[in-house]
């Protein structure tokens, strides 16, 4: 990867070596925040081709790196200082770990001689971030720096992707040393299996051929492996009906007759019935089957043959026992499957088992307070026929977006599934734009989530990001209220925001546009205007007032 001649040593500071290595790897942008311990890196970034984006809180920097990585398909890079800098990264790193997003996090550390003395802004970054990263390292010797950087990028973006953190002592960054930038890492303990076992593939195909009611369950691993066209080829070839997890929007167009919805706690009844009862074979591709995907773990595929395809051997049979495991890269394995079918066609589609009743019920979803307003907004948004990157936060709006965002040009949604991080959506949208500046970005959020990281709106204004933040304002933590309604006998506490926030004014205070929408008739126009302005915008949809007014309008029309 490095452009430096092999074996050539050149005296330079650790910071200079680091920044040169990042440039050599094609890093275009770093999302970061300076502090005492990482200033040597900043000093080098002044003369670098790499663009630095100054975030307003370190958590924003990881989510931006995640959004960037999701769109770009290679690691996003973030940079923080020691102490509070690194502790502020923790939530974002955990988010990237649970959703398998490649991120390289660089943190400054206090000088080596002071480590362990409770010096100013010292925390044990290595041990704090160990359980929230795929791998991390405290670089203690100059001779390890080049290899550590090489390893960080390789580990983050191979196998099951994830975040890697390098903790870099300030004195190592400051001092000159004869670096050989052509060095590469050697990782004898890290050999991700990429090629699926051909015997298992044959077994799987045989089972699929025998099945009467086969079903394909698609998870986020398919997109992460870049296997969207392969999975589509397989679906067409086998004419196999498809369900998906929350994280795998965009695998099939929602009106495709083979598409039957989302499984899990927030999924639709039909999809859950198919996996729990009706299918006699489920091919699971790139899905980790966590508790939120399994509405009833005891029923999932109980009488079905289960085939699981995953890059991570530890995912096979973790929550559900599997009959035919295939460990391998989803893209390569699907290709091998397709080749095998080419070679030896299998008998499929003899008894199409999905019928009209299934088609009719696939759009049936539970109803909830004022939620139809979110539905209307998502439907109007889906009519805007532009390529856009759409992020969500966490809460009710996330689930509504997941069911009602239907335009393939807006999918897959960028959302926080594993960790469920409120405040993910706004910085992730900004990061996504840096990866694809041609396309506008939209963040669907709630009033609760928006307030978790709203300071990053200023970053969008500063860099003229064509961002539209859509705040679904219900003046409360709507999903918490739902849970207190359903599980705690409607005993309510701590879900109401007793003070109303003027969100449009907040956006204006930060230099953007802001608009409050209280009428249903305004929804389409407000969205169209905001997105086409290509400026940082916030639209606040007052769910209660829109809901109330449209009910009154209906009543008036009827009378």
């Amino acid at each position: 990867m490095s452009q430096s001649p092999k074996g050539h040593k050149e005296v330079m500071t650790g910071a200079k070596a680091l920044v040169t290595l990042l440039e050599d790897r094609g890093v275009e942008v770093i999302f970061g925040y300076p502090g005492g311990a990482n200033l040597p890196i900043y000093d080098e970034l002044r003369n670098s081709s790499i663009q630095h984006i100054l975030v307003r809180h370190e958590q924003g920097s990881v989510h931006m790196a995640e959004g960037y990585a999701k769109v770009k398909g290679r690691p996003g890079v973030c940079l923080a200082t020691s102490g509070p800098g690194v502790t502020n990264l923790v939530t974002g790193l955990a988010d990237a770990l649970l959703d398998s997003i490649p991120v390289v996090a660089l943190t400054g550390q206090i000088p080596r001689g002071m480590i362990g003395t409770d010096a100013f802004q010292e925390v044990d970054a290595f041990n704090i971030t160990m359980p929230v990263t795929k791998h991390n390292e405290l670089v203690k010797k100059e001779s390890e720096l080049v290899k550590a950087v090489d390893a960080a990028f390789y580990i983050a973006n191979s196998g099951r992707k994830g975040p890697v953190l390098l903790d870099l002592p300030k004195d190592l960054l400051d001092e000159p040393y004869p670096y050989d930038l052509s060095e590469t890492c050697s990782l004898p303990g890290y050999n991700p299996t990429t090629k699926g076992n051909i015997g298992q593939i044959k077994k799987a195909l045989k089972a699929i051929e025998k099945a009467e009611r086969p079903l394909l369950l698609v998870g986020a691993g398919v997109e992460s492996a870049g296997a969207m066209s392969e999975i589509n080829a397989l679906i067409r070839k086998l004419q196999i009906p498809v369900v998906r997890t929350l994280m795998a929007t965009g695998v099939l167009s929602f009106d495709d007759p083979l598409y039957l919805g989302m499984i899990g706690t927030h999924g639709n009844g039909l999809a859950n019935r198919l996996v729990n009862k009706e299918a006699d074979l489920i091919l699971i591709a790139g899905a980790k089957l966590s508790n939120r995907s399994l509405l009833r773990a005891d029923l999932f595929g109980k009488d079905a043959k289960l085939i699981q395809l995953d890059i991570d051997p530890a995912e096979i049979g973790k929550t559900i026992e599997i009959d035919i495991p295939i460990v391998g890269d989803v893209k390569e394995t699907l290709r091998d499957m397709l080749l095998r079918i080419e070679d030896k066609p299998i008998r499929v589609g003899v008894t199409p088992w999905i019928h009209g009743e299934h088609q009719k019920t696939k759009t049936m979803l539970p109803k909830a307070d004022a939620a139809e307003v979110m539905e209307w907004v998502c439907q109007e948004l889906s009519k805007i026929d532009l390529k856009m990157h759409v992020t969500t936060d966490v809460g009710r709006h996330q689930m509504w977006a997941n069911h009602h965002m239907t335009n393939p040009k807006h999918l897959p949604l960028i959302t926080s599934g594993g960790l469920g991080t409120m405040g993910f959506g706004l910085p992730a949208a900004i990061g996504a734009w840096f990866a694809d500046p041609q396309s506008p970005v939209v963040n669907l959020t709630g009033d609760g989530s928006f307030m978790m990281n709203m300071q990053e709106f200023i970053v969008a204004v500063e860099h003229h990001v064509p961002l539209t933040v859509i705040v679904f304002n219900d003046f409360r933590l709507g999903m918490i209220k739902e849970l207190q309604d359903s599980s705690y006998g409607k005993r309510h506490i701590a879900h109401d925001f007793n003070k109303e926030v003027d969100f449009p004014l907040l956006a204006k205070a930060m230099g953007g546009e802001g608009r409050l929408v209280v009428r249903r008739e305004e929804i389409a126009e407000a969205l169209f205007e905001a997105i086409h302005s290509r400026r940082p915008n916030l639209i606040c949809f007052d769910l209660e007032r829109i809901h109330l007014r449209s009910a009154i309008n209906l009543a008036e029309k009827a009378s």
Partner: protein
Amino acid sequence: MKSKIEGRHVIALEVEDKPGVLTRISALFSRRGFNVESLTVGHTHQPGVSRFTIVVVGAEAELEQVRKQTQKLINVLKTFHVLDQEEASDLELTQGGAKNVQHAVMRELALVKVHYDKESARQINHIVERFSARMLHWSGEDLVLEFSGTEAKVDAVFEELKQVTVLESVRTGKVAMSIETK
């Protein structure tokens, strides 16, 4: 279906000798709810490679998950779920099917400091002879003995030692080496 019953299991790991590798491994075991009963670690004949033998209590189904998670650590080279040759016959019924289970011989070392005088001499000499102990140090009053053998043997040593005055003792926990079984 793998057993959900809690049992004692031995995991052997070959790891790269890197800072923090012990923390990574012990953190994983505790996160998955495994109680580490003993853990030994030391160098091997290969430079830069260390070997862990970990005795844990937990359910077998979860043990396989923890073994896979451990294998995912970048600095871990190999993982084995090993079965004590002596306990194998009891456990084979439940574990015979698992692919990564290997038979192994296992040994444990113990150092014991006993008070040695005229009254206890006969009893201590008897223990030394019966368990082939080595005498490592003699101060005139205290005697340091080394025992090694299977866990059952070291257990028996400690049972016998109840009859004399033990001043200090330490057990290493098991070390394991896989073997071919025919």
